[in-house]
């Protein structure tokens, strides 16, 4: 067996393991929190209370307008100056949730706007309250429309987690860096890391397809 083959095989499990214990849990947890933030933000920005629209608009503006890596550094390295010391995990989850929440809120807002006004009118003319209309009529239709853009946001998040290597979290990318430093095979190792990301994203894309099919059964 060639030397490259041996190194690749040896590196495979440590990199995959870092994916299973850091990249995937970090992505899933951050995405779950991001979705809650996104729905609240989308609704706030569509509400007729101007102060809510303004506050949540400001939030989206800031988190879409600044680089993710810079946000991560501010939360992890910067906040301690204010006496807020967070471990790398907490800092990562907070940053990724807020960042993805800002993007996904726009995906969800766009999906809600895309639902014909007649759906609101029909529901309201039955005497439904705002929350009843949202829950019974708008939400099920929003889910279908927002699946592709929200999956996009999720994929961006998964790949974005590679930035946590720079704040000491031992994710796939950091493990890859360490193995490269030892073996001097950057092309081989980083390609391996890339392939495992691609594998994760492929699974996600497959799930998106299944979900879309399920959510579109009424079309």
């Amino acid at each position: 067996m060639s030397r490259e083959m041996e190194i690749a095989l040896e590196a495979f499990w440590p990199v995959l393991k870092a994916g299973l214990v850091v990249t995937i849990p970090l992505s899933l947890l951050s995405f779950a929190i991001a979705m809650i933030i996104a729905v609240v933000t989308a609704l706030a920005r569509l509400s007729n209370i101007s102060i809510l629209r303004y506050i949540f608009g400001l939030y989206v503006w800031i988190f879409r307008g600044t680089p993710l890596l810079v946000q991560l550094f501010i939360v992890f390295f910067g906040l301690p100056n204010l006496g807020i010391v967070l471990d790398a995990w907490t800092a990562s989850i907070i940053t990724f949730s807020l960042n993805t929440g800002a993007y996904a809120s726009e995906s969800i807002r766009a999906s809600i706007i895309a639902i014909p006004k007649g759906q609101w009118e029909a529901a309201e003319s039955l005497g439904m309250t705002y929350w009843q209309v949202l829950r019974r009529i708008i939400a099920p239709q929003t889910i279908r429309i927002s699946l592709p853009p929200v999956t996009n946001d999720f994929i961006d998040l998964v790949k974005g987690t590679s930035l946590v290597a720079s704040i000491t979290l031992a994710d796939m990318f950091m493990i890859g860096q360490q193995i490269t430093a030892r073996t001097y095979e950057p092309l081989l190792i980083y390609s391996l890391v890339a392939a495992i990301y691609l594998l994760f994203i492929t699974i996600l894309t497959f799930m998106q397809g299944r979900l879309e099919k399920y959510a579109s059964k009424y079309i």
Partner: protein
Amino acid sequence: MDFIVQFSNMHKFFDGHEALKNINLTFNKGETTVILGPSGSGKSTLLRCINLLETPERGTLSIDDIHLDLSGSVSKKERLAIRQNTAMVFQSFNLFPHMKVLENVIEGPVTVLKKERIAVIEKGKMLLAKVGLSHKTESYPSQLSGGQQQRVAIARALAMEPKFLLFDEPTSALDPELEGEVLKVLKDLSEEGKSMIIVTHNLNFAKEVADRILFLENGEILFDGETKKFFDNKENDRIQSFIQSMQFI
């Protein structure tokens, strides 16, 4: 008790433009009223002011024992109370696409009126039979023709047991051959003595079904009276030219 819908001194503005001017009107129980008028005359707006999809800026609205002063702010509770006394059928059907036909029909009674699901399902099936769609209860709206969708929408409105049924150009989005099946349902309902207010462009239908005609132009009521008088009108040139212009449609 005879319930009614009543507007007095009602005005509706859109961006400074007065869409409805000083409307004083009473709709009575058991009456089928057809609202006619050229495009932009305010007929749909008038209808949508009844269930407060549009909120007039001035005047009063009464439905049954609910009385609202529209120059003040209308509370959510009052809005819902008004809407539970009416049900609307729209030009573009507006069925809920993610729900099957029967689910569309029972949605209002179950979610809004909090009625028991099993009883409502029976009633829903009955209403669908009435509009000739017993065989479509488990279909999605996207699997139905326009005429069928509109009949489901009528069943959905009836399921609320409203005091007034409001129809906003119910056949304008339909091919002529599908229009007939919807008009027949409307005619049956009218003959049953349902209280109906219908905005339409179909003069033949108005002639056949309406007890009373309202003719609107530029936000004002130019005619309010018996159907026969409207069509036999000799004095009002505006109404005569309107009827003539609609002959070929």
